[in-house]
C-alpha cells in the first residue's frame, strides 16, 4: 500500500541502514498524530484485521454519542473495548509496544482510505477518531504526554511573565478554578499561558474560557489540550480531503477495493458483529419446534419477530426470509430434526410431497448437510442492514416510520414498551443509528430484568447480531427463573 512498491525500487542497503539508524524506535509515543503513512509491506489479511478491530472501537464511540453516554461512561466502555481489540499500553517490552502501536497506526490509515470518500463519512470518521484520541490523551500519564507534546511543534507562543502580569486582571477573570478566591489565585500564579490565534481554539472562545486580544487567545496550561485536539481534527480533516482527491489515482490493487467497501458499510451498520454463536453454552436445554412461538414472543429482536409473525400469518416465508430466519433459529439451538418439524408445521398448507421436494433440501443445506456442506453463520445486523429494502432485513432501517411505530407497539407493548418511548426510538432511527434504536428497545423491554439505560447487552455493548439479542434475553430470563426457583427451594 501507499506506493510501497515505488519505494522498493529505490531501496538500497545504504538507505535502509540510514533509516534504521535514524529511528531506533518507530513509535516512541503511545499517542500518534498520524503524520506519516505506513510505508511497509502489509498482508491483505493484516490490512483487514487491523481495520476491523479499529472499526469496532470507532463504532462503539459513535453509538455512545448517539446514546448520550457521559464522558466517564464513554471512557470506560471505550477503554474496555480497546483492551480487547486494540490494546495500546504504556509499559511493556519494546517489541510488544511496537507491535501494538504499529497496529494502531496501520488501522488508522486503512480506515482513512475507507472513510475519505464522502463528506458524511469523513465527518463521522473525524468525530470518532478525535474522540478516541481524546480518550487516550486523557488516559496517558503526564510524563508521557509531555514528551509527546514536546515532540511536535504546535505553534503556540509561551506568554512570558511580563505579559502575563500586564493582563493579570483580564486573565484572572476568565480563569476557572476553585470557588475559594485565594486558592484560585494561587493556582493562577503558577499557571503557564500560551498564545494562539483564536481560530485554533473555537471551543474555548465559544465558552468565553480564554482572554482575547487582537485575535490572539491566551490559553491557560490546563486548557492546552483544546489546542491539541483542535489541531488533531484540523490535521485529520485536511489529510482526509487530500486522500479523497488522490484515491481515484491510487495505484490500486483489486483486492483492496472490496475490503474498503465492506469497511465503509460497516460504519453504517454500527459495529462489525463479533457475536459468534455459543448457543448451547447459554441454554443447556435443547430447543424444540413447539417452543419457538413462545421464545419469539419473549426474546426475539424485532427483525426476527416480524419474520415469525409473517410466517404465522401467511403460513409461508420467501426464500431469503427462510434463510435468514432459519439460520437464526439454528444458532439459537434448534437442531436439524426440530427445524424440519418446525418448518413442516409452519407451512401447513402444502403437501408433504411439495415440502420434501422444495424446502427440505434448503433447510438441510443451511445446516451444512447438503451441497457445499458449509456451516453457515447466522446473518449479522450488518448483513441485514445492508441487504437492501426487503421484508426480511432490519425493520428499523427498512420500515416506514409509521409502520415501525405500529410494529413496535404491537410487538413489545406486552413487554413494557409504551408509546411514550417511541419518540426517542424514532429520533434515533431518523439519525440513522439503527443498531442504537434496537439496543434501546432491548433495554426498555428488559427493564424488568434490571437492564438499565445505556447498559445494552452488558457493559454498554450494542446489539450487533440478532442472536446476541435473543441469547442475552434468554440468559436474563434464565437467571431470573433460577433465582425464583432457589427462593422456592429455600
Amino acid at each position, binding site marked *: 500500500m501507499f506506493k510501497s512498491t515505488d519505494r522498493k525500487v529505490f531501496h538500497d542497503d545504504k538507505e535502509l541502514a540510514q533509516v534504521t539508524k535514524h529511528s531506533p524506535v518507530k513509535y516512541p509515543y503511545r499517542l500518534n498524530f498520524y503524520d506519516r503513512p505506513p510505508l511497509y509491506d502489509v498482508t491483505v489479511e493484516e490490512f483487514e484485521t487491523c481495520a476491523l478491530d479499529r472499526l469496532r472501537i470507532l463504532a462503539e464511540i459513535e453509538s455512545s454519542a448517539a446514546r448520550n453516554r457521559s464522558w466517564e461512561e464513554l471512557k470506560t466502555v471505550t477503554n474496555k473495548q480497546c483492551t480487547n481489540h486494540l490494546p495500546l499500553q504504556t509499559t511493556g517490552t519494546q517489541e510488544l509496544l511496537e507491535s501494538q502501536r504499529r497496529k494502531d497506526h496501520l488501522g488508522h490509515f486503512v480506515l482513512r482510505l475507507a472513510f475519505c470518500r*464522502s*463528506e458524511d463519512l469523513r465527518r463521522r470518521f473525524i468525530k470518532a477518531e478525535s474522540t478516541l484520541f481524546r480518550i487516550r490523551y486523557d488516559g496517558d500519564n503526564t510524563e508521557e504526554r509531555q514528551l509527546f507534546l514536546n515532540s511536535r511543534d504546535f505553534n503556540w507562543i509561551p506568554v512570558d511573565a511580563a505579559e502575563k502580569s500586564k*493582563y493579570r*486582571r*483580564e*486573565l*484572572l*477573570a*476568565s*480563569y*476557572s*478554578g476553585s*470557588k475559594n*478566591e485565594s486558592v*484560585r489565585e494561587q493556582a493562577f500564579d503558577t499557571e503557564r499561558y500560551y498564545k494562539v490565534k*483564536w*481560530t485554533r481554539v*473555537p*471551543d474555548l*472562545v*465559544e*465558552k*468565553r*474560557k480564554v*482572554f*482575547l*486580544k*487582537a*485575535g*490572539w487567545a491566551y490559553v491557560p496550561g490546563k486548557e492546552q489540550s483544546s489546542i491539541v485536539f483542535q489541531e488533531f481534527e484540523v490535521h485529520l480533516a485536511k489529510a482526509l480531503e487530500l486522500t479523497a482527491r488522490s484515491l481515484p489515482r491510487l495505484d490500486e490493487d483489486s483486492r483492496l477495493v472490496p475490503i474498503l467497501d465492506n469497511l465503509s458499510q460497516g460504519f453504517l451498520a454500527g459495529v462489525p458483529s463479533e457475536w459468534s454463536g455459543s448457543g448451547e453454552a447459554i441454554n443447556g436445554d435443547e430447543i424444540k419446534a413447539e417452543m419457538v412461538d413462545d421464545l419469539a414472543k419473549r426474546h426475539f429482536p424485532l427483525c426476527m419477530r416480524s419474520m415469525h409473525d409473517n410466517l404465522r400469518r401467511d403460513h409461508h416465508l420467501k426464500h431469503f426470509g427462510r434463510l435468514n430466519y432459519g439460520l437464526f433459529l439454528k444458532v439459537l439451538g434448534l437442531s436439524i430434526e426440530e427445524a424440519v418439524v418446525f418448518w413442516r408445521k409452519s407451512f401447513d398448507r402444502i403437501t408433504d410431497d411439495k415440502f420434501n421436494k422444495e424446502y427440505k433440501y434448503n433447510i438441510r443445506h443451511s445446516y451444512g448437510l447438503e451441497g457445499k456442506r458449509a456451516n453457515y453463520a447466522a446473518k449479522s445486523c450488518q448483513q441485514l442492514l445492508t441487504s437492501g429494502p426487503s421484508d426480511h432485513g432490519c425493520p428499523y432501517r427498512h420500515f416506514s416510520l409509521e409502520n415501525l411505530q405500529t410494529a413496535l407497539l404491537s410487538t413489545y407493548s406486552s413487554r413494557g414498551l409504551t408509546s411514550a418511548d417511541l419518540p426517542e426510538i424514532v429520533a434515533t432511527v431518523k439519525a440513522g443509528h439503527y443498531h442504537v434504536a434496537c439496543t434501546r428497545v432491548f433495554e426498555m423491554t428488559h427493564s424488568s430484568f434490571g437492564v438499565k439505560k445505556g447498559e445494552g447487552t452488558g457493559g454498554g455493548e450494542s446489539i450487533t447480531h440478532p442472536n446476541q439479542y435473543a441469547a442475552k434475553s434468554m440468559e436474563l430470563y434464565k437467571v431470573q427463573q433460577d433465582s425464583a426457583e432457589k427462593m422456592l427451594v429455600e
Partner: protein
Amino acid sequence: MAVKEAVDTSPEVMLAFYRRLYPFKSLFNWLNHEHAPTRRFTHREFAFTLQGDVYLRYNSFNTAEELKKQVCQLNPTRFEIGPVYSARPKDKKTVRPGMFTPLQRELVFDIDMTDYDPVRTCCSGADICRRCWAFISAAVQVLHTSIREQFGYENLLWVYSGRRGIHLWISDKEAMELTDDQRKALVSWMTVIHGGQESSKKLNVRLNARSLPASLQTAVEHLATIFPEVVLSDQNLFASEDGYEALLEQIPDSQVVTSLRKTWSANPSRSSEDKWLDLKAQAKKFEKGSSQRTNLTAAMEDIILHYTYPRIDAEVSKHRNHLLKAPFCVHPKTGRVCVPVDPLHIDEFNPESVPTVGQLLKELDTAGRSEGEVGEHHSDWEKTSLKPYVDILDKHALRLMEQVRLEKREQDVSW
C-alpha cells in the same frame, strides 16, 4: 414613524434608481478588494427578490457592468449578497455537488430592533424612532470595539438596514476565511442575551460566580455610562408595575426584593431613576466586601447588560452561506436606502433623515434642470444627498484595496 408620506417604490422608481443612482462600481470594489475581477466577485452569489416575491438564487457576474445590466433587466425590489463559492454560482447545476461549497464570506452581523421589544416602551415591532435608536447605537459601539480589540479585525462596514436594524460586514482576510464552526464560536462569545420570550431569565455570563470575563467587563463599564439616559430617563422602563417586576426578578436577594417592592407599590409615581437609586442605596447598606454587596453589584451589572448589551441575530452570522441584503438597496416598505453608517458618529445618526428613493430622484431632477441635460447618466449619485454615504463605502473599499495591494507587493519581494 414620523410622517406617513406615500412611499413610492414602484417598479419605475426602482428602475430609475438602479439605472442612475445605485453605486455598482463601489459595491464591486468593496466585494472584490481589487480592480481586476477576482473570484471574490466572479464566484460570488447574488440573490434577487423580484416584484411579487419571486426569489432567484445563485446568480453570479463577471463584472460590475454585468451585474448592473442584470439588475436593470430584472428590476428586483432588493438583492442580497452571499458567499464566494468554489465555483461560479451560475454554474451550480453543472458542477458536481461536492465541488460547490462556500469558501469565503464577510463575517456579518445583524442587529434588529424587534429583539429589543421587551426592553423598549416607545415603539414595538417594525417601528423605530430616535429614542429606540439609542439601543442600536449602544450595540454598535460595544460590538465595534469588541470586534476590533478582541478579534483584531479592522475592516468593518456598518450599514443601516433601511428600517429598524443595522448590519455589520467585516472584510478582513482572516474574517472572510472563517469556517462555520469558528463563526459559531465567535457569535457565542459575543452573545449574552439569548433571545426568545424567556428574556426575563437571569444572565449566565460569570465563569467564577463573581467576576465578569474581561470582554464583558469593558462592555459593562461603557454601557453603565449610557444606561441612565437610555433605559432610565428615555425609556423610563421601570415606571410601570410590569417594568419594575421584571427588574426585581433579576435581583438575587429576596429581602431586598420585598423591601423594594413595598416602597415602589406604595409610591407609583417614582420614576425609573428613583428606583435605580433605591436599588443602589440597598446595595450600599451592606458592608463593602460582604457577599451580599458583591452579589448585588454583580446583579446590577447583569441588569445593565440585560437592557443594553447588543442583541445579535445569531443565525445570520453563523453560516457562510447566509444571504444578507446588499448595501444601497431600497427598503420596500420605507423607501429608504440602506446606507453605510459611520460607527464613530452613530449617536448622531438619525434613521429618519436617511434619504428615500423618491427624494433622491427628485433631487436628481432639480440638479439636472439647473445644469442642463447631460448625455450619459454616470455616477449621478454625486449630485444627490446619497453622495456622503457612497463616499463612506468608497473610502472603505479603497482601504481594502490598498491592503491587498501592499500584501501582494510584499509577496513579490519575497520571490
